[in-house]
C-alpha cells in the first residue's frame, strides 16, 4: 500500500432529507508512507468521515480518495476486502466492533472466516493481545463487558492481527490514563519504526498528538484549516479559535517565554525537564 490522496472530497449525510448535513467540504491532502499523521479537531469537524473514507466504508459525494491502487470515488471498488485488510480501522466506539461471545472469537473472527493460513492461530492471537498490553486471561471474557480502555485495546488487537500497513485510530486516547497513553505511545512508535506502518490518528487529544505526530491536520467545521509539522500547535490563538486545547507542554513553554525565559519546545515531559534545567538554571 502506498500513498493516500484526498482530492476535493465532499461528503454529505442524509442527502435530500430534512436532516441533511455536510460532514466534509472540499477536503484535499496527501499522505506519505511510514509516518504518523494526526487529524485534530473538535466534535463534528469531520474526522471520523476521513477514517470511514480511507476504509471505504462510505463513498464521497464528490471528489475521490486514492488509497494505494484503490480509488474510492463512488464507483464500485474491486477487491475492496483487500483494501480493508491493509487499512486497520479502530472505531470511535470500540463496542461497535464487537459481535462475538468472547475476546478470542472476536480477534480470530476474520482468520476463521478466511481460513487464514497461519500455523499457530492461537499463538498469533496471544501475540496480538500482548502487543496491546493485555494478557491471556482476557481471551475468555465477553468483549461487551470489558471496560472502555480494555475494549479499545481488544479492538486494536482485532485490527493488528491482519498486519495492516495503515492503522487508523479514531479517538483512541479518550478515556486512557497516563500509563495507558505511555504504552500506546510506545506501541505506535514500535509500529512505525520497526514494522514501517502508516498511522492515522483522529483525535482531540492535542498533547498526545503533539508528542507523536510527524504531520498534523487541523480540522474545523468540515474543513482542513491548517496543516504542518507539530509547530502548528504552538499557535495558541488558532487552537482556541477552533475549540482545541493547547498541548500542556506548549502552554508551559509559552508561559515561560512570556516570563522572559528562552526555552525550546520539547515533545515530551522528560526532555522538557532536562531543557528547563539546562536553559533556565
Amino acid at each position, binding site marked *: 500500500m502506498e500513498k493516500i490522496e484526498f482530492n476535493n472530497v465532499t461528503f454529505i*449525510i*442524509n442527502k*435530500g*432529507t*430534512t*436532516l441533511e448535513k455536510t460532514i466534509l467540504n472540499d477536503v484535499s491532502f496527501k499522505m506519505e508512507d511510514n509516518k504518523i499523521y494526526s487529524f485534530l479537531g473538535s466534535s463534528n469537524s469531520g474526522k471520523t468521515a476521513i477514517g*470511514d473514507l480511507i*476504509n*471505504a*466504508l*462510505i*463513498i464521497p459525494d464528490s471528489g475521490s480518495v486514492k488509497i494505494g491502487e484503490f480509488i474510492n470515488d463512488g464507483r*464500485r*471498488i474491486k477487491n*475492496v*476486502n*483487500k483494501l*480493508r*485488510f491493509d487499512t486497520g*480501522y479502530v*472505531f470511535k466506539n470500540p463496542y*461497535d*466492533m*464487537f*459481535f*462475538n*461471545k468472547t475476546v478470542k472469537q472476536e480477534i480470530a*473472527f*476474520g482468520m476463521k*472466516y*478466511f481460513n487464514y493460513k497461519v500455523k499457530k492461530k492461537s499463538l498469533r492471537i496471544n501475540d496480538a493481545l500482548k502487543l496491546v498490553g493485555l494478557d491471556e486471561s482476557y481471551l475468555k471474557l465477553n468483549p*461487551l463487558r470489558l471496560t472502555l480502555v480494555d475494549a479499545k485495546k481488544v479492538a486494536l488487537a*482485532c*485490527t493488528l492481527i*491482519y498486519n495492516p500497513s495503515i492503522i487508523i485510530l479514531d479517538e483512541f486516547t479518550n478515556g486512557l490514563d497516563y500509563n495507558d497513553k505511555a504504552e500506546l505511545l510506545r506501541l505506535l512508535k514500535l509500529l512505525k519504526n520497526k514494522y514501517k506502518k502508516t498511522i492515522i490518528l483522529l483525535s482531540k487529544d492535542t498533547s498526545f498528538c503533539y508528542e507523536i505526530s510527524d504531520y498534523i491536520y487541523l480540522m474545523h467545521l468540515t474543513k482542513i484549516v491548517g496543516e504542518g509539522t507539530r509547530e502548528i500547535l504552538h499557535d495558541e490563538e488558532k487552537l482556541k479559535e477552533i475549540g482545541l486545547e493547547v498541548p500542556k507542554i506548549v502552554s508551559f513553554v509559552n508561559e515561560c517565554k512570556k516570563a522572559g525565559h528562552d526555552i525550546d519546545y520539547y515533545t515530551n515531559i522528560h526532555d522538557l525537564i532536562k531543557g528547563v534545567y539546562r536553559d533556565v538554571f
Partner: protein
Amino acid sequence: MYSRNSFGSYYPIDSIIHRLNPILKIFNFILTIGIIIFAKSLEVNLFLLLFILLMIMLSHVPSKYYLNTFWSMRYIYILIAFICAFFSTTLTTCMIYIIKLISLVEYIGILAFTTSPSENIYGIERLLQPINFFFLPLPKYAFKINSILRYYPLFLSVEYKTFKACASRGIDYYNTNILKRISIFTKVQSNIRRLTSFKNGQIMFASVLRLFHDRRKRSNYRSNKIGLYDIFFTLFHLALVYAVLIERGIL
C-alpha cells in the same frame, strides 16, 4: 456502502403523524393488528396498505427509510411466495399474505420513526390503565411491549453495525455474492440476536434511569393532546374494522 442512515430509530421532525397522541397511536396499532389478522379479502388489505402509504407520506420521514425496511425483508417475501406456490394456493392468497406482512412491518416502522420510546411507553401504559382490574405492574409491561415493538428496528440497526464492523475487517457483506452473504449471515446472526437483546436491555435500563420507574405510575409526563387528526385517523381505523366485521359476517 455503509452510509449513516439508521433504520427504525426515532426520526425527530415535526409532522402530522409525529404530533398524534401516543395513546391513540397505540390503540390504532392494535386495531391494525386485528385488521391484518382477520381481513380476508384483497380489497380490504389493499385499502389498509394504501392507508399506510398515506401515513408514510404524512410522516415526512424520507421514504428511503421505509424502503430500507422493505428491502431488508425481501427474502422473507420471496419465501412466502415459494411457500404459497408449494401449497398450490392462488395468486390472490399469496398477494394477501405478502400485503399483510408489508403492512405490519411498515406500520411498525411508522410507529418507530414517529414515536419516541418515552411516548411509546406512556401510550401503552395509559391505554392499559382503564382495564387494569388486578393492579398489575403496568409500567413494567409497557416497557416489555415497547421493547418487543422496537425489537425488529433495533435488530436492523445492530445488523447494520455488525456488517460495518465485519466490513472494516475485510468481510464485506454488501459487496459479495449471494452464497458468501449467506455464509456471513449464518456466522453472525446468532451474535446479532444476542447483541439486539443486550442493547434492548440497555435501552430499558437507560429509560429507568432517565424517566421511568417500572413499578410506579408516572404523573409528570406531558404528551400531545388528542386533536382533530387523532379523531380522523382513529375513525379511519374503526371504519376498516367495520369493513372486516362485515366481511366476516359478524355485522
